[in-house]
């Protein structure tokens, strides 16, 4: 299973449709303070089913939708799509390419799609189970969280570890 690309539009500071493509090895993301690098990491968490407002650095659901700036009005919709190469069928679904999409409107709940067919959140979670991805995954380390395991209490470490295995 390989990450191919992510597209974000209306999510936090991604007021314009933004696509990043990935290949083998290491991709660096750089830029000034406040420019949107951690927002990109949040976009990954969000599209992979994260609901914790603390992990998303966002008070309520609609806080992930672009709130506008001095020149632009707020948007009404946030959408993130992440595309995987699934040739090895590590995702238990019979598609060579798998696109997971999450959409949120201001007044409503989130909507989820796998290859453009609408599904429920639990279908996403189930799909990702066993890949080490999804909410609480240790494979996403948020800013300031690198030493969380060490600074937590022993029982908190256990729950961190459980989400991993």
């Amino acid at each position, binding site marked *: 299973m390989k990450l191919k690309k992510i597209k974000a539009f209306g999510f936090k500071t991604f007021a314009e449709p933004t696509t990043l493509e990935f290949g083998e090895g290491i991709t660096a993301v750089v830029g000034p303070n406040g420019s949107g690098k951690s927002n990109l990491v949040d976009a990954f968490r969000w599209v992979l089913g994260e609901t914790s407002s603390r992990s998303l650095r966002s008070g309520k659901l609609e806080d992930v939708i672009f709130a506008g700036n001095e020149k632009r009005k707020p948007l009404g919709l946030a959408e993130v799509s992440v595309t995987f190469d699934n040739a090895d069928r590590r995702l238990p679904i019979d598609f060579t390419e798998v696109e997971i999409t999450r959409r949120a409107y201001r007044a409503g709940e989130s909507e989820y799609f796998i290859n453009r067919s609408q599904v429920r959140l639990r279908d996403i979670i189930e799909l990702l189970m066993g890949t080490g991805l999804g909410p609480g995954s*240790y494979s996403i380390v948020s800013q300031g969280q690198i*030493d969380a395991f060490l600074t937590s209490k022993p029982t908190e470490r*256990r729950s961190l570890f459980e989400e991993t295995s």
Partner: protein
Amino acid sequence: TQAQFNETFERVAAEFAKSYAQLFPGGVAEMWQTNPENLAETGIEIAVQPPGKKRMPPMTLSGGERAMACASLIFALVRTKPSPFYLLDEIDAALDDSNVEILSNTLRELSTQSQMLVVTHNKKTMELAERMYGVTMAEPGVSSVISAELTKADEQRELSFV
């Protein structure tokens, strides 16, 4: 299940000890369960002893020492329960140049089997990357992303916009 958790735990703990000792020859890191018979009540204890130092409670470790110990744990998880990709947001923020080097070398090695997205302000970490995306805000409040294939000729120019 309890048995499964314990078995995974033991494998990761062994790899964690090995990882840390490899990165810091003479150093010792250990992880154990406080109550392995009782999954509902067990906690995880951890002890890290940098080379030549006395074993002290984790809270006394420095910022950089904690970051490297936790990085060793991530490396152990990568080697025992690999994930297809990793997103690492500024994990090098507390590191001195020597530890950035040690971290970089390990990331490079692990990136041959897993994809990694690394957010960083550190020039040495950037040098690791096959490709680089620059996130800027030409218009305040709106992210705009420029891609950059990191070539030797480009390196100076790429690093100038950060």
